[in-house]
């Protein structure tokens, strides 16, 4: 419980979105009697999308605030998020996580591909992992199959249900919610002060978890057979992107009319100072529906270890700036790859090195603080038609027939396994995961 004495330092998490509430809940959970965590919201109508898409890496954090995955799915019309489909005209590419297939040691499977036929390579990309296959077919392993334990899955959730559950957990952990307009009472030493528990209090550390306020959205909810979709999709239209998130009985589509530059997208070192950090540095080209949640999955564990009993905001900010510099750079690479899938030419500082290494020898270069897995990066590269063009020294010694047979065997194994998957609807039925409100949209 976040029950603290009157002199306890205060950490405020600012933002009306689901991301801010979740960050505040996680921090309140661990603050345990030492630091007071406050959630600062505004009276302004929340620009909260009706559905959200969280990546597999966030699930441990959900468990850290005692939220059970099955209960959350029931409460929030949840479906499995195995990956994301990028649609550009007739071209559809699935990018998903999952353990990379076995290779011919010490050669990796991606090093076997360079001179295989385009058809076989495309087939390989479509069967890269079980996640990819499931996301493509809209299926999941049966509930009595333990395969799901080996498939990193995220969730598609109705935001209202998510907010209810996280809000409940947050209250249980003593999170205090304060409205900025009512509680603001001036500044002291250039820091804002707020009325907290009726007393003017200085915020020791402000965590700004507001998301991109400049983007313009419109929302549509449609009655398609959503329960049989196990991936989100991003579709390029003439002047907007449509992000579609399938829930149990409907899909929620968000049309992103413009992705304007984030007003706070200046370098991290200038942005985060004097006890304040801004969590999200949106890239104007980033089309990924789960980008903020992916960032949170890296940032919250990072903060969890650095928020110490004797709070030292300046040290945390310095440390956070280093993380955010890496994270932002990596996200820009992935944003650029995602944007390219949708027909927008985009580049970033490290992308050339990643691309070169993949082209030269099928090697996926990884850096510190990556929000995307190696498999997902690989998926983006292949979906962009970036393929190894040369054989690695050792790989080139393996006869083409043997390499081809190995890749085909992998495709067959994934196909065979994926054929035993069931429609997501059947999974939800059999596991009792459907929400009770049958008509809720």
């Amino acid at each position: 419980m976040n029950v603290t004495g009157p002199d306890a330092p205060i950490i405020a998490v600012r933002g009306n979105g689901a991301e801010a509430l979740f960050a505040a809940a996680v921090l309140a959970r661990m603050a345990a009697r030492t630091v007071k965590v406050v959630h600062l919201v505004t009276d302004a109508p929340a620009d909260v999308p009706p559905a959200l898409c969280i990546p597999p890496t966030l699930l441990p954090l959900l468990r850290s605030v005692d939220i059970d995955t099955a209960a959350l799915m029931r409460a929030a019309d949840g479906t499995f998020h195995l990956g994301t489909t990028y649609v550009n005209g007739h071209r559809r590419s699935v990018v998903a996580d999952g353990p990379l297939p076995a290779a011919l040691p010490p050669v990796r499977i991606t090093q076997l591909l360079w001179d295989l036929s385009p058809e076989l390579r495309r087939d390989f990309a479509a069967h890269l992992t079980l996640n990819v296959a499931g996301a493509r077919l809209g299926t999941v392993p049966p509930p009595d199959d333990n395969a799901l334990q080996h498939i990193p899955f995220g969730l598609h959730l109705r935001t209202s249900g998510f907010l209810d559950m996280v809000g409940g957990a947050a209250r249980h952990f003593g999170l205090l919610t304060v409205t900025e307009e009512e509680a603001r009472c001036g500044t002291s030493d250039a820091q804002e002060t707020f009325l907290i528990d009726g007393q003017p209090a200085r915020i020791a550390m402000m965590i700004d978890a507001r998301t991109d306020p400049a983007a313009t959205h419109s929302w549509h909810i449609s009655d398609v057979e959503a329960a049989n979709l196990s991936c989100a999709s991003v579709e390029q239209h003439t002047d907007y992107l449509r992000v579609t998130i399938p829930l149990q009985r409907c899909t929620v589509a968000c049309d992103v009319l413009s992705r304007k530059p984030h007003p706070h997208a200046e370098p991290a070192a200038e942005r985060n100072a004097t006890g304040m950090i801004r969590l999200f540095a949106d890239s104007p080209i980033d089309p990924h529906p789960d980008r903020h949640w992916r960032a949170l999955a890296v940032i919250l564990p990072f903060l969890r270890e650095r928020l110490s009993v004797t709070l030292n905001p300046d040290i945390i900010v310095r440390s956070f700036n280093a993380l955010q510099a890496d994270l932002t750079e990596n996200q820009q690479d992935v944003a650029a790859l995602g944007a390219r899938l949708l027909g927008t030419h985009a580049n970033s500082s490290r992308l050339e090195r990643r691309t070169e290494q993949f082209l030269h020898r099928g090697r996926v270069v990884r850096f510190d603080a990556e929000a995307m897995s190696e498999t997902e990066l690989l998926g983006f590269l292949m979906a962009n038609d970036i393929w190894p063009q040369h054989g690695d020294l050792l790989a080139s010694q393996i006869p083409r027939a043997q390499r081809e047979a190995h890749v085909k065997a992998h495709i067959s194994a994934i196909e065979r396994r994926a054929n035993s998957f069931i429609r997501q609807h059947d999974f939800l039925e059999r596991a009792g995961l459907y929400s009770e409100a049958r008509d809720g949209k």
Partner: protein
Amino acid sequence: MQGNAPHRLTDSRTGARPGAPKSVVIVGGGTAGWMTAAALSRLLAPAGIAFTLVESEAIGTVGVGEATLPHLRFFNERLGIAESDFLRATMATIKLGIQFCDWGRKGDAYIHPFGDYGRQTSHAPFHHLWTRARLAGKAGRICDYSLPVIMAERGRFAPPAKDPESIMSTFSYAYQMDASLYAAFMRRLAETRGVARIEGRITHVAQDPQTGDVQHLTLDNGATVAGDLFIDCSGFRSLLLGQTLNVPYESWASLLPCDRAVAVPCESNGPPLPYTRATARSAGWQWRIPLQHRIGNGYVYSSAQISDDNAAAELLRGLDGAPTGEPRLLKFEAGRRRLQWSRNVVAIGLSSGFLEPLESTSIYLIQAAITALVELFPTQADDRADRDEFNRVMMLEYDRIRDFLVLHYHATERDDTPFWNYVRTMCIPDSLQDKLDLFRSTGTVTLYKDGLFLEPSWLAVYLGQRVEPKSYALAANAVSEEKLQTFLQQIRIAVAGTVERLPAHADYLRGAARAAVPA
């Protein structure tokens, strides 16, 4: 290859593109040269590359790194070497860590172990829980929560378990070995696998006038040795990368001011200890590396602070047994080449840079370079991307090791000699200062994906040298005081009880290596 004109081969059999190296020349036959030759001839065997090693018996080798890191075990395994063969051939002993004496303060001692502290929990990393108890005066030494530290202190050893649930899976181990015997062992291996050895001193290095690539070497007997790719293992001389290609050397002497070492072996004075010892001295530090048949010793020092003669005298006074040879002097400068791979020359070992042997990183850096080279071995004429990536990976290794070494010197309270006063007050890189500030303030160890030293290593040196956190993660408060005490006590008991049941290190060696170690 002797006497051949410079050439580049293509391979119609494998389909490798023109420009992919088919002949590799290794310059220098010390530890780095023969490790490289043995590894490449094994790992790149299917590629049909011709390997040649050029060395001169007239030029001595430095024989770096008698003490190693656990990575060497995996390197040996990859080369198909049985541990028992290796132990016998190199007169090796087991190493569970390094004991640092008199570093934080005179009289202090701690062991930097190859293994974890405590047990992971869902609440917070172990050291935050331990720090909470320490600040309440109820924690005891962090060493008491480390299996390898207690094993080392009591001279016990058995190999780690594979079961992740077992406490015996919480550590790793390395070796203390005779580096010159290891080089000879690697040479036998390499020559068995077809590496051609050419004896001769290199008198001229010919470069392509257009590209600047090294084309061939001329030896003192007039013979020429041509190749597609040259690996510079010529030691401090850096004959190809430094002297021929003029890749500048970046000196870190202001951060790591020791520039000399004097080394001498001595007789064993009992069963070998399963750890290396590094004892701080007036102008540097002294190593003690117990092998099966002798103890290796050396004094690494700053020549600005002590003369060579006085350093040798201080070394000889600090030996545990009678010296078995004359002290040997080495000169060096800490730092690294700005590039490790330039044109068609890759530097491996001392030719690429030097970091003093405080944390036994010399052989590790050789291994890291070999591993990176195998992964990035050029497959075409345009190898720019491979070179860039190799340089990025190796620079990161050097830079991160440098910070860790500097920490040992800087995190001291000693001001009893000009040397210690200098290192205590010197300016350190921001990358290290930020890590220190974060640890002091929050108890958090900065982690990274690539780099040699992980959380337990940083913890060992921080805490062993009195860099004590003022605080700990809030999440560590999630456990009640009573539960925390029970948890800590259980670990201490488990560690002590496990070690009690293990065999003596010397007994293990007699069994595993049939070694004749002193009783």
